[in-house]
């Protein structure tokens, strides 16, 4: 065995690579032992509009979401991608599932999410592939994709079923005015403004 710098470099690189691989595996193994207690609640505030467009229906829905995901953060968590799904079934499609809102949560402090008037953010849209949204039952599923510093990604979900149905007739969307579920009455809600379109949790810092 020669003791040239080449063989030393080779031995060092091999050892470093092996150690790094073992450490990465150990880090991702710790995820298995992390217990989390997420606390969520979601209400259907009402419908701001239900439109018949060219070839499809479009709904404008307002939710009230509270999600305490702080316990999901472990030392191996880089970020949570939190998203709100709107789900329904029609005769043509057994499953229609679409994200209506999302946020990147980069640290534990921002993982307590309160959005009292949660609306679809651009480019997310609540549309059917037909005209099936009137009087449609729907579920809301809140999901969080746990993205690690090293290792396995996984997604946890919490479904709030049967929050609907949507109103049974079309009406033009008016910002700030929702039709309460199961009734004809309209109430005023805060519009939230442009901040709702911006991602409040992802900064360039």
């Amino acid at each position, binding site marked *: 065995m020669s003791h040239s710098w080449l063989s030393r470099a080779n031995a060092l690189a091999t050892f470093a690579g092996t150690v790094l691989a073992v450490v990465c595996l150990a880090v991702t193994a710790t995820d298995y032992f992390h217990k989390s207690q997420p606390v969520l609640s979601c209400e259907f505030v009402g419908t701001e509009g239900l439109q018949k467009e060219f070839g499809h229906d479009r709904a404008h829905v307002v939710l009230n979401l509270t999600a305490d995901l702080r316990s999901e953060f472990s030392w191996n968590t880089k*970020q949570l*991608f939190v998203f709100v799904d709107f789900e329904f079934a029609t005769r043509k499609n057994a499953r229609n*599932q679409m994200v209506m809102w999302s946020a990147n949560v980069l640290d534990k402090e921002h993982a307590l999410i309160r959005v009292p008037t949660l609306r679809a953010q651009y480019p997310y849209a609540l549309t059917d592939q037909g005209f099936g949204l009137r009087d449609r039952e729907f579920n809301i599923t809140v999901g969080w*994709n746990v993205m690690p510093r090293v290792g396995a990604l996984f997604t946890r979900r919490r479904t709030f079923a049967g929050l609907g149905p949507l109103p049974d007739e079309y009406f033009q969307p008016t910002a700030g005015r929702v039709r309460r579920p199961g009734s004809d009455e309209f109430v005023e809600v805060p519009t939230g403004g442009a901040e709702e379109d911006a991602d409040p949790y992802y900064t360039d810092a």
Partner: protein
Amino acid sequence: MNKRQLLLQGVNLGMIITSALMIWKSMVLATGSESPMVVVLSGSMEPGFYRGDILFLYQPKTPAQTGDIIVFNTDDREIPIVHRIIKVHERAEGSPPRLDILTKGDSNWPDDRSLYPRGQLWLNTGHIMGKVVGFLPHIGRVTNIMNDYPWFKYALIAALGVVVVTSKEG
């Protein structure tokens, strides 16, 4: 350096290459994905994935869900894209039922429709190369350097060739 030593070197090199190939092909079989490991090439999924990160893919048996991060290739593209599914329509009939899928990069403003071929509004299961299940940061940066500066790739191969030829023992 006689003929026998040269042949031995050749066999050793062949062993290294075929072992790597066997490991790769086993991973393809185990994961069901034609490319079980990929390097992130763009910043469209920041801050989750940066250029040079390595992703491990898997073809799940369950149908695609929103929130899944997938690697997909449309018919006219060479290089696959890693983005997140934001909309799924699953037909009631059919076995397996057809899926219409829409994707978007986390740090992109619009959805991916402008990236699909002209006239194509949706992806389907056939476009998906795999779902991202594992992540390793930074290791793939070497691949990025080799792609951006091809001379580095040739220099590396030449250096490895020199090392193989000049090393005394097998």
